[in-house]
């Protein structure tokens, strides 16, 4: 009997370990929704995609209007699939949208908007990941909800499906509008 118990030890040890691993899954370090939550949108000074002469900064976000900021790139296939949802949010739900054209060339970025539509009031041109770095972006698309005072209220990582528009984006917009 004693030997039996001894032989069960590896199993018990393993079960304990997997319990922790299971908990570890929900503590995924990549779940960073809260990292920038309730922080001010970072300061920046960049040109717009539409015109190299026009420079924009943080004051874009302190106009008192709730804004959805979307990080995109022409090279990013998910961004293209996401465009119909973004156009819907801008036109049907009348949400102010600002784009960040991320790690892209001006020519390709403008081509993208021509082909897939432009829901954005203006696009910040960030070819060298300056603003992206401040925001902690690590892959397009990413979307931030910024309230009228320039404070980040919600962060969505990755592609936004039509379902997520209904279940996540719109409720958040309601909450902070």
């Amino acid at each position, binding site marked *: 009997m004693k*030997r*039996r118990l001894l*032989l*069960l030890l*590896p*199993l018990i040890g*393993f*079960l304990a*370990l*997997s319990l*922790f*691993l*299971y*908990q*570890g*899954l*929900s*503590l*995924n*370090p*990549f*779940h960073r929704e809260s990292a920038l939550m309730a922080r001010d949108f970072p300061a920046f000074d960049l040109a717009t995609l539409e015109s190299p002469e026009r420079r924009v900064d943080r004051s874009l976000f302190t106009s008192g209007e709730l804004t959805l900021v979307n990080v995109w790139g*022409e*090279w*990013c*296939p998910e961004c*293209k*699939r996401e465009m119909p949802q973004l156009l819907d949010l801008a036109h049907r739900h009348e949400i102010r949208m600002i784009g960040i054209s991320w*790690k892209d060339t001006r020519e390709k970025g403008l081509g993208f908007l021509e082909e*897939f539509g432009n829901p954005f009031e203006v696009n910040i041109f960030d*070819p*060298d*990941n300056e603003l992206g770095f401040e925001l902690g972006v690590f892959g397009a698309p990413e979307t931030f909800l910024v309230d009228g005072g320039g404070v980040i209220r919600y962060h969505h990582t990755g592609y936004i499906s039509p379902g997520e528009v209904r279940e996540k984006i719109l409720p958040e917009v309601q909450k902070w509008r």
Partner: protein
Amino acid sequence: MLTQMIPEIGHYALVIALLLAVIQAVMPLAGAATRRPLWMAYARPMATGQFLFVAIAYACLTTSYMLDDFSVANVANNSNSMLPWYYKFSAVWGNHEGSVLLWSLMLAGWGYAAASFSRELPRDMVARVLGVMGLVCVGFLLFILVTSNPFERLLPHMPADGADLNPLLQDIGLILHPPMLYMGYVGFSVVFAFAIAALLGGRLDAAWARWARPWTNLAWACLTVGIALGSWWAYYELGWGGWWFWDPVENASLLPWLTGTALMHSLAVTEKRGAFKSWTLLLAITTFSLSLLGTFLVRSGVLTSVHAFANDPSRGFFILMLLGITVGLSLLIFALRAPRVSHKVGFSWLSRDALLLINNLMLVIMTVTVLLGTVYPLLLDALDLGKISVGPPYFNALFVPLTLIMSVFMGLGPISRWKETAPSLLVRRLWLAAVVAVVLGAALPLIFAERWSAPVAVGLIAALWIVLPMLRDLYDKIRRASTLGAGLKKLSLAYWGMQLGHLGVAVTIVGVAVVSNYNIERNVRMGPGDSVQVAGYTFTMIELTDRRGANFLADRAVIEVQRGDSNRRFTMNPEKRLYLATGMPMTQVALRPGLFRDLYVAMGEDLGDGSWAMRVQYKPFVRWLWLGALLMSIGGVLAVADKRYRRMATAPDPEETALKPAGGDRGKEATA
């Protein structure tokens, strides 16, 4: 037209492979349990078919990469039309979905190999081994099809070009590192299946150990090379000049290596002496479990690491379930059935048996040390005690002394005898080796280095202590023969394998000791015309240029190096690359390799005024690290080629097997 169907064909092939794997798992296991030869006979054809269809799926994905089919999401996200063809080929496994597919391909491949080279095995053993492997395949193929389908399409919005392969992965070391590592990880599934089969069948004898040993050695050799390649890659590609970072993923590959090493030695005892049976089984299960754990840690992104490139919790959950079912079930079977196969064998405390037991113990302690250090941050986090990371100091403080203690026993092991060794014999054969090791080990750094270093001396003594007794043993064995040739001929390949493997460990110990203590690193600001002296070498920056590669732009420095006052000069060209598609900067270090030292120059930051922050390093004996690993794995492969395994490697005449009466298998069992 036909090429447009390739991804769908691949997807379909995967589904068929899954179905075949289900049959491969169910029929033979059920057949072995109910003694139905026909059901057991399903094992081999199903394993073959499954391998074939996974290979078709893999070929389809590779073709999609080669043809730049950006309508496939996996290709669009990880490749680019500008990539050279060999990186398109290797980009297949540079991402989550593709690497799981590669994993499955290898699993099926090992299964196919086990099916092909098992003609000598009893039918029920083959059925159980392949059945268990089939079960594992089912798990992984389900994982691919449910959570990680590499053939998903991006239609109708397909991108014009792909997002490019992570620049870190655009490198020869990374073409080879994952496949070798996976070959090792997955290879342990064979000995795992053998262990479960032995537990289910209640039969574990010397013949079983003889079947299991070559598979273990092969998997171990692949894993050794895989780990060494990873270390080599980190050394020249990451630009920090380190070769082992105790990164969670490195640790994950080290864990099965440690238990796999223990398993090889334990199997030797089981074959020769019929001892340590349940221990061997437990090690076989543990080794494969740790391979799976490694996969879980990498694929789930539970631990932050440079390697974690999949971060989908549903995937992590699936792998955890897979891990839980596989490991939990096998450990349960172990607990229930192990008493049936084990029995007591006596040996004295000074014998090869006992020394191998100590070796096993040390390796297991090392495994636990590394495992704890790796998951400890996770435990704390789960218990809400804050986030910490366990760094190299913890690992070095425990791992280095453990290795030294083990090397003491490594000197004793090969020259001791089974069952019992007379102390006087050991003393007689070893006193000279001990004296020479201590004197030489202490004196060598004094003679060749500028300053004496105690850690280096200890490392050298340990290495010499491993090597010298083996030389003595070799000498004794040859001396007894009539001529040198006859003496050498009599030594088996397994013996040479053991010698080489141990020599490899010694060589690695020398490399680690010397490079860790005599490494010189200088961070300097350099512009054209500036020079710096490191370890007797003068590095002069001649000019700064730029260069355009296939898919990157690079700043490039031309550095001229001169040794002492000699007239021999050579140039080194470190680069700072900017990859166009991702905008990711990468350091390409310039290396001047040598058997006794590497010179290492890396470009840091552009300081603006025409000069750069440069990192210049002198790394003595660093090559010995990987040379040692190479020797170890060659040793492992040599042992597989030994005569006594060859009998089972050559399949008997098929007609003869076909004509054999039904009782043939049983008869063989008795004689084996």
